[in-house]
């Protein structure tokens, strides 16, 4: 784990609107009464208390990037046109992991099994958002450190399974981030357990200063 930095117990700021949006809420159209609002708030707070985030990242060098193939310095090859485009200005990238831990999934299952599916879906959406907010936290943390070197991260990040960046490439991330030490495992079909876990990559880019013409 020498090159991998791990953070535990972070409570990242998450966006309630994004949780609502995951649940199909449409501002100005969907109506929520007071009782339902309370159910929603308390379910999201419960999700927050049941998520014990573990975050990790490592920086990797990019030795080659052409024709939809990105070769990392250790020889790992990642394929995907959109990924390759996102990393086109990067000589280094950062691999990231975020997991909300097992407790939240146990609670979601228990709610489903006891006929409280409406709460279960709220916890499910909140946990997804909180795990994602973990990656936002990592990116902001890294950006602050990179900026002094005249660098930034790409605005977007990519996770295996997006577009033509195949889910099977999750295996490379799992190996490079040693996810088992973070409490995450991967199935034969490249799914992460606990379910609310996400792996991603972002590029490091040089920042230029606006020059007067």
């Amino acid at each position, binding site marked *: 784990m020498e090159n991998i*930095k*791990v*953070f*535990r*117990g*972070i*409570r990242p*700021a998450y966006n309630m609107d994004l949780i*609502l949006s995951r*649940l*199909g809420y*449409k501002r100005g*159209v*969907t*109506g*929520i009464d007071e009782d*339902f609002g309370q*159910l*929603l708030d308390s379910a999201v707070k419960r999700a927050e208390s049941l998520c014990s985030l573990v975050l990790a990242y490592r920086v990797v060098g990019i030795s080659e990037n052409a024709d939809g193939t990105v070769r990392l310095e250790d020889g790992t090859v990642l394929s995907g046109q959109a990924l390759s485009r996102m990393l086109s*200005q990067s*000589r*280094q990238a950062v691999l990231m992991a975020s997991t909300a831990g097992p407790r939240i999934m146990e609670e979601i299952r228990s709610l*489903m099994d006891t*006929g*409280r*599916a*409406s709460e*279960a*879906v*709220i916890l*499910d959406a909140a946990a997804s958002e909180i795990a994602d907010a973990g990656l936002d*936290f990592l990116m*902001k*943390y890294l950006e*602050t*450190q990179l*900026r*002094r*070197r*005249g*660098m*930034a991260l790409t*605005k977007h990040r990519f996770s295996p*399974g997006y577009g033509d960046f*195949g*889910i*099977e490439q999750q295996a490379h991330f799992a190996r490079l981030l040693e996810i088992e030490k973070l409490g995450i495992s991967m*199935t034969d*079909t*490249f*799914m992460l*357990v606990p*379910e609310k876990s996400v792996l991603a990559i972002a590029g490091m*880019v*040089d*920042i*230029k*200063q*606006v020059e*007067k013409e």
Partner: protein
Amino acid sequence: MTREEFRKYFDKGIVILDGATGTQLQRRGMPADACPEKWAVENPEALISVQRSYVESGSQILYTFTMGGNAIKLAEYGLESQTREINRRLAELTREAVAGKALVAGDISSCGMLLEPYGEVTFEQSAESYREQILGLLEGGVDLFVIETMMDIQETRAALITIRELCDLPVMVTMTYEDGMKTLMGTDPVTALVTLQSLGADAVGCNCSCRPAEMVDIIKAMKPYAKVPLIVKPNAGKPRLVGGKTVFNMDADTFCSYAQPLIEAGANALGGCCGTSPEFIRKLSAIAGRFTAQKPLETTCAMVSSNRRTVFIRRDKPLTVIGERLNPTGKKFLKEALVRNDMDKVTQLAREQMEAGADLLDVNAGVPGLDEKKALTEMVRAVLDAVPLPLCLDSSSPEALESALRIYPGRAIINSVSGEKVKMERILPLAARYGAMFILLPIDDSGVPETAEGRIEIIKSVFEAARSYGFSKEDILVDGVVMTVAAGNNAARETLKVLEWCSHNGFNTVIGLSNVSFGLPARENVNAAFLAMAVASGLTSAILNPNSRQLMDIKRASDVLKGKDVNAREYIEHYSAMESEAKSGEVRPARNKPTAFEAVLNGMSGEVAGAILADLDKGLSPKEIIDNSLIPAIQKVGELYEEKKYFLPQLIKGAEAMERAMEVLAPYLDKETAGVMGRKGTVVMATVKGDIHDIGKNIVVLLLRNYGFEVIDLGKDVPADRIIQSAKDNNADIIGLSALMTTTMTEMPKVAAMAADAGLKARIMVGGAVLDREYAESFGACYARDAYSAVKLAESLMRNIGGG
């Protein structure tokens, strides 16, 4: 430069700091992947040239190029053994660059890793990493220090404490805030200011991350509490992607247009961070020269902080409540928990007290035979993880207090410093070193003076000693010393006299309330009456049990009567909310009971049973209830969902209420009617082999059942042959499959092919995050976008089949 000289330095006007150095060095050839500090040591001309241009542009304080020069950061390049040497050399180079025309600030920043409990670096490892750097910078001849671009208040404390342990030079500290005016770790600007200025920072402020406009708000927030100059170093805007390149989007003129608002908000020093250049500083310097800076305050109110919150203790504001429950004295369960190092009980007590209205929590780990140093530190860690409240560290052990103060990520209160020799000699210096407030307990080595006059003499003498450490009245809470009235007639009166004297002499006060009733029956009455009397005598804070409704009621009422709760605003807010809660509790049962239709429509699972039974009582048949109320209601729920007037949890709540309604009706249904809900068709549902994400499928199952389908749910990770067998066994009309991943959705065509081979008539319906209609149709399946679409699709398939 002495700290006093530094303070006076700001009397002359706005102080101009430097701009970005790293990006300027990159323009002079520094590679992005090089160790910046090492590169600068090896290319001194480049560094000197950049820094000289800042001096020529008007910078009065130059930062050494050592932001990443701590041992942990240098270890990333294998250079940790050269920490001292690199820092010394870089400080010397900056001295050379400024040539006596500006001050040199030794620059320190984050080690790039988070401290415990979030990361793997301990507080002491962090302090040690800074130690070598600070020694190198001191050898290089810096005039002062700057700790900058900090995200974590705890790491900032580690750096500041280490500097203070090694020298008495001035220290400037700037944190970096995200949108929303909090650091990434959740500290707001006022809390950072309170923590840092009490810990000995000589200037505080913000740099990097947010835009200049947001920094105006940060400075505005800090200014009313700032006893030190405020400094600001914004970026040249935010990095933006322009034409395929990432750039800072602000030019020097735009950047400098924020100088005036920043100065008017209270900034005393301005400079630039990422993306700025000597041109920015030259223009800034020209503008700043036209303005006069607002001086820092001489005194403020008493302020105490955690890493996430500041509490103000003021004589003109409502009584501050310090929760007393985290004290094992007389609590067997807490003693046992502390001995077992079981912090669940501790965090539960912390949460309960916060919810009951405590502003601060007193934390005491005094259990005979227990390692108090370790236990108090563990308690502090656990409590701060559970609640954002600042803490009062209650111990007479200097070792335990120092261990807890070191890792306490804010400004704590020490409970207590008395006139006893050992307390004056050991605990008072600790309070000074860690910037803590303290409770002044007016007892000395001869014991507790019986009279108020005796106690006041001790207060004066301890305060005199405290002043020599730099404390002022606002850093102290005087304890009135509450003795039990059962032991002496005058006990309460003498305490009240002390409180009155303190109030007239500008001291904040505190009492440990419950001692007063010790030995008496019905203690709560005595405690409550004494609390009211003490507030009348000028009490500003009390250590009490916030779970006592009576005490909290008396506190709120006393605040109003004493004029501390202006216009009874807090009182009215609190009790109006309670009244409305109570009323809603009374009214609810009387509220018009929902009909069965309304209960399903509004997802009222708890009320639907009553509605159904009422309908049955009225003589409605089960079939009438289903046909005229339940089915129209669940259909309406679906329509509202389609129109997005309902969102997913409301759709599901409707289905849950429907499910409950059918459970209630079940015993009343005849055979024919019993089949009505399953008449639409039979669906075998499964999440395909290899896929473990089944919440979506579970919701579809719930909805289908409540929209009249018979559903056989096979679960997740189900092999194709089991799905086919079940479809055969149950003569299924529809096979519903879900998959979340591209790797598992390929199971779906296999199931479809096997169904065709087996000659099944069942239609295949599929859904899942990565699927689309085209993929589904490629193997003859129908695609459902979401759970409700699956219901609509199933209904439509059944119509085509000829059922439903």
